[in-house]
């Protein structure tokens, strides 16, 4: 059964089926876009939270760490309630924009939290040294970003992995509509429920391949990350 499904999977892969490849493209597009946006805001937020002293800092950090582990389906539900409630007039339900929004919100705390953790480990000494060398706040933030660059990249990898492998939230807000909002994970979930395991395995293999290629590319930028 497994072997048969795997062979079928490869047949499907090399049949260059239009639907399969449009699903792959949509998954990649939404996940990459969500990761880029979340990386920008997450890096800024993470660094600002870690270098600033404010009254609710501990609580804010706890909140970020809690949201790092939020089940995607719960986040999907929250987004769903918002886009069908106060923001109903935007007509976001079952759209790619809603999927992008859900994935961005899912990835944001992962990147922010990881940057807080890595930055707090190293930032004290770096900032102290920069201060004594005459650096202003912008110099210090720039220096810190450069010094924790490998950790930022690591956080982005984690964020992207979470985005591309996520199913619950995009299923809820995207609706898994054929030729519209169907992505790799929702395709796998649907085919599993119909007993079409070969299609699921094919998509699973592609998902793993994409993850492997992306991690390899990012590791190149990171240098000795996997050494």
């Amino acid at each position, binding site marked *: 059964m497994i072997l048969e499904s795997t062979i079928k999977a490869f047949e499907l892969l090399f049949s260059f089926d239009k639907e399969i490849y449009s699903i792959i493209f949509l998954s990649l597009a939404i996940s990459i876009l969500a990761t880029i946006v979340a990386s920008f805001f997450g890096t800024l937020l993470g660094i600002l939270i870690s270098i600033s002293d404010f009254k609710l800092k501990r609580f804010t950090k706890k909140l970020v760490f809690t949201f790092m582990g939020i089940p995607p389906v719960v986040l999907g539900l929250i987004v769903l309630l918002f886009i069908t409630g106060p923001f109903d007039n935007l007509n976001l339900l079952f759209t790619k924009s809603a999927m992008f929004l859900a994935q961005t919100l899912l990835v944001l705390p992962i990147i922010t939290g990881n940057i807080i953790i890595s930055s707090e480990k190293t930032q004290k*000494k*770096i900032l102290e040294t920069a201060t*004594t*060398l*005459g650096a202003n706040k912008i110099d210090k933030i720039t*220096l810190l970003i450069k*010094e924790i660059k490998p950790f930022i990249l690591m956080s982005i990898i984690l964020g992207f992995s979470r985005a591309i492998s996520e199913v619950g939230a995009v299923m809820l807000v995207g609706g898994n509509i054929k030729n519209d909002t169907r992505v790799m994970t929702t395709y796998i979930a649907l085919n599993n429920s119909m007993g079409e395991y070969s299609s699921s395995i094919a998509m699973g293999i592609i998902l793993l391949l994409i993850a492997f290629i992306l991690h390899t590319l990012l590791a190149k930028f990171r240098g000795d990350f996997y050494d």
Partner: protein
Amino acid sequence: MIEINNLVVKYKTITFKFEDYHFKKNKISVISGRNGAGKTTLLKAIASLIEYEGKIKVNGVITYNSQEAVIFNRSVFENIIYPLKIRKLDISLYQEKIMEYAKVLSIDHLLNKNALKLSSGEKMKVAIIRSIIFNPEIVLLDEPTTHLDLESITELSNLIKKLKNQITFIIVSHNKTFIEELIDEEYYLGGKICFS
């Protein structure tokens, strides 16, 4: 150059109460005292890196060099020019000076190497050059000889002596040979103030 009055520093559960000190211009002052007497705390307070009560009056730009050299992930040269870069100074005007200091401390052959890959002693030398390259008036050195071999300690002494007329050095060190080589004034923490 530096006047300290009624200085009190609270660090976790410990409170350090310091005597009044006056560090003079272009002198090499050595702060001595037993472990835990508050030598590093005093230097950090002078550099305004920690909160304190009392009065510290500093005349001039000050820089602090910590016990463990904090090195940025870039080449030795890039580390050294960091304070020049943030001041938007013309690096080419400092090339000669960088080479000179690097030669005195025997790290001139390492300028293009990634500073994180250096030994602890070499890192300390990089950090010291970085803290003096932009001509601060006061340099605070916290245990600068910890990771240095005997030859390197002599090299550092030579560099400090050379810069004595331009920079006021305040040094915390347990290395007697190093101290004796340089000392103009000694301040003993946890007891009376001694002048040599």
